[in-house]
């Protein structure tokens, strides 16, 4: 080895050693996280001290493309500032409010806002990244007056080991979305959507018979969304994805088999689902808004997307309960509080969320203003209130409704109980994607084998997750 090469290698080795030491130092526990308390009011249950100046950053401000919502946000910030002149709200816009890959990177880099938007299913991920503050002590009847009326099953999604980490922003229960125009054209009653899979299959067959590229029923089968919808459909039939302790798969049952068999029959026996599969969000909405799809399983805010983004009409869409009606997959979004926020920042964040998202007649529930601004009023979402708050919300919604509320009557009347997603949902969905895409793309698919394979794979994955 000549001297120059020796020199170069020595420098490289030294550099690598230095980097490794640097990396080890950077990754040592305790070097990344904030400690939480940065002074301010120490009594968590006490109201925000009006004498303390506090600034909070918050994301999910509506983007400029959503002019009405953005203007409302600005008006609400101004109104909030009159109530709390000591609080400065710094907003960060974005649409969609969460992009999973970017969200994961933000958590890792600790670059999320002080009060940050997330999905109900993100809590475990956020806590693993040590990204959120426990706000249990801060949330009470004073800071959130409607707390007693918030559906406990919704609050349960924001709790871990009995501690509360967030407040809801919106929520949904999945149901059957359908195109009323196609129902009418196929001779079906648009006010009476099917409530069983047998009914769905029959309606899909009649809608597909319209021809011209129209499909009766559609489903996702890619990017883990096949597994997500499989779960929703299984819940509808009363099945479970995992055992109570979450350690074993529990879907290789008659109900689980029925979900796949239904899809297989609609795809291959009835040919009512079309040849193009491997669909993912928002493909089904695109098809339905162009009157090429009769039905699919989805959430009420899909209707908003079809109208606002894809230029559909509210009159054309209806919503019925989840076929089977035993349970409906529950989901939604919320605001969490960044680890390291001061008590005053947490109090200010809760005050803002209460003002904007949790007060009947105000913020997102100011239906008179929504109507004036041309925003939809009357969609069955969010609906995390119960009791007196729910009654007040329903009255206000009915008074200013701008969308045909009767189109969602079958969905609301059924009152299917909500059920949250299983633990380690994404890992499970990834496996079930294969089973769902199997029945939708392979005429010779063996439902029993697909289900048995998925079961053993999910068992393996859950065992390795510990």
């Amino acid at each position, binding site marked *: 080895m000549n001297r120059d090469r020796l020199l170069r290698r020595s420098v490289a080795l030294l550099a690598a050693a230095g980097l490794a030491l640097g990396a080890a130092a950077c990754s040592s526990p305790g070097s990344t996280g904030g400690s939480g308390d940065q002074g301010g009011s120490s009594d968590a249950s006490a109201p925000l001290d009006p004498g303390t100046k506090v600034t909070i950053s918050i994301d999910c401000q509506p983007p400029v493309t959503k002019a009405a919502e953005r203007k409302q946000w600005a008006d609400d910030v101004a109104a909030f500032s009159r109530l709390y002149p000591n609080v400065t709200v710094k907003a960060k816009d974005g649409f969609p409010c969460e992009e999973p890959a970017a969200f994961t990177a933000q958590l890792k880099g600790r670059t999320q806002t002080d009060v940050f938007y997330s999905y109900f299913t993100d809590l475990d991920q956020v806590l693993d990244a040590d990204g959120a503050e426990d706000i249990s002590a801060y949330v009470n009847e004073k800071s959130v007056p409607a707390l007693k009326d918030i559906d406990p099953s919704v609050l349960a999604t924001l709790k871990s080991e009995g501690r509360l980490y967030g407040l809801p922003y919106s929520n949904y229960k999945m149901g059957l979305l359908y195109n009323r125009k196609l129902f009418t054209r196929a001779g079906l009653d648009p006010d009476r959507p099917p409530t069983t899979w047998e009914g769905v299959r029959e309606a899909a067959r009649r809608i597909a018979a319209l021809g011209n590229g129209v499909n009766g029923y559609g489903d996702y089968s890619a990017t883990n969304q096949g597994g997500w919808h499989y779960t929703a459909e299984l819940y509808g039939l009363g099945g479970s994805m995992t055992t109570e302790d979450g350690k074993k798969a529990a879907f290789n049952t008659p109900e689980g088999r029925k979900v796949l068999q239904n899809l297989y029959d609609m795809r291959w026996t009835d040919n009512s689902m079309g040849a193009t599969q491997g669909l993912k969000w928002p493909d089904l909405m695109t098809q339905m808004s162009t009157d090429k799809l009769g039905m699919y399983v989805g959430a009420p805010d899909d209707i908003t997307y079809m109208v606002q983004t894809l230029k559909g009409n509210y009159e054309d869409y209806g919503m019925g309960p989840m076929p089977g009606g035993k349970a409906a997959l529950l989901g939604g979004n919320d605001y969490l509080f960044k680890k390291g926020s001061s008590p005053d920042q947490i109090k200010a964040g809760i005050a803002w969320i209460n003002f904007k998202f949790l007060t009947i007649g105000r913020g997102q529930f100011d239906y008179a203003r929504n109507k004036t601004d041309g925003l939809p009023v009357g969609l069955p979402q969010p609906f995390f209130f119960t009791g007196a708050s729910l009654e007040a919300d329903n009255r206000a919604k009915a008074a200013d409704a701008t969308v045909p509320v009767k189109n969602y009557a079958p969905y609301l009347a059924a009152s299917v109980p909500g059920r949250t997603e299983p633990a380690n949902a*994404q890992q499970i969905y990834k496996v079930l*994607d294969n089973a769902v895409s199997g029945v939708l793309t392979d005429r010779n698919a063996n439902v029993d084998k697909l289900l048995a394979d998925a079961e053993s794979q999910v068992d393996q994955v859950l065992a390795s997750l510990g």
Partner: protein
Amino acid sequence: MAAISAFARRKPAGPAPDPAPASRRAGLKQRVRRNLTAHGFLLGALLCFAYFSWYPMVREVVMSFQRTRRGRTTWVGLDNLDHILQDPAFWQAWRNTLLFTLLALVLGFAVPFVVAVLLNELRHAKAYLRILVYLPVMMPPVASVLLFKYFYDPSYGLFNSVLRFLHLPTSAWLNSSSTAMVSVVVAATWMNMGGATLVYLAALQGIPGELYEAAELDGAGLLRRIWHVTIPQTRLILSLLLLLQIVATMQVFVEPFLLTGGNGPQGSTTTVVYLIYQYAFNFNDYGSASALGLVMLIVLAGLSGLYARLSRTAD
């Protein structure tokens, strides 16, 4: 001949006498002082490389032995490796990746070479056709993918429409586990072959015309000229591109991710890099993602080493 670099110096016949340590240190100091300006210029680039390339690599190695749960990072030894080996998707992803690599070599390696040979043989419109061949590379991958998604659509796509018009059996393309990967390879080849074609073409144009003339005088036809002149003369370029192609295709991500959403029918287009992406961004499991990345690095390094050894043996 101080200007001549160390690489260009001839090795002395016998073992070089070991210079005294003091003079060696003096030599080192002198060399550093002499090249101080150059090192200063290099420092910026080195720091950028260190922070954006080398540091993440080192972090990846560290993270592959760690797990983070509820904010606590712990050393878990080979648990992450064990976890990825337990994942049923692991072997399927490797099978799919190797299949993609194999198909990409058959198509993506042979097609650009044939196109380059044909272009080289042309007398007219050579420049025009060169641009035409390179055009797909200039298209944004997302646009190309959207185009192919339309081509492949089993109901109203271009390919099946043509097949139906010719009364030939149609295909499910991306909608079947048996044809999805081939469809992805075809799209990827179309999207990426322009660059390889131009490199081959440059190599072909470097071959002295006299060799072809001599071969023609000896009565060699087109195929024999290609076999006895073109291929031997471009062997070095072919070898280099083959290695680059293996390394690149084994890291395929964009095409299956955009064409099939990643997994494809029954996981038929799940590749190793997509699996890494899923671990990191779907499951928030950086430890497993890093461990799989490390496995991939070792496999690629092994393949490259094996290839280099085989090449030397062939020489």
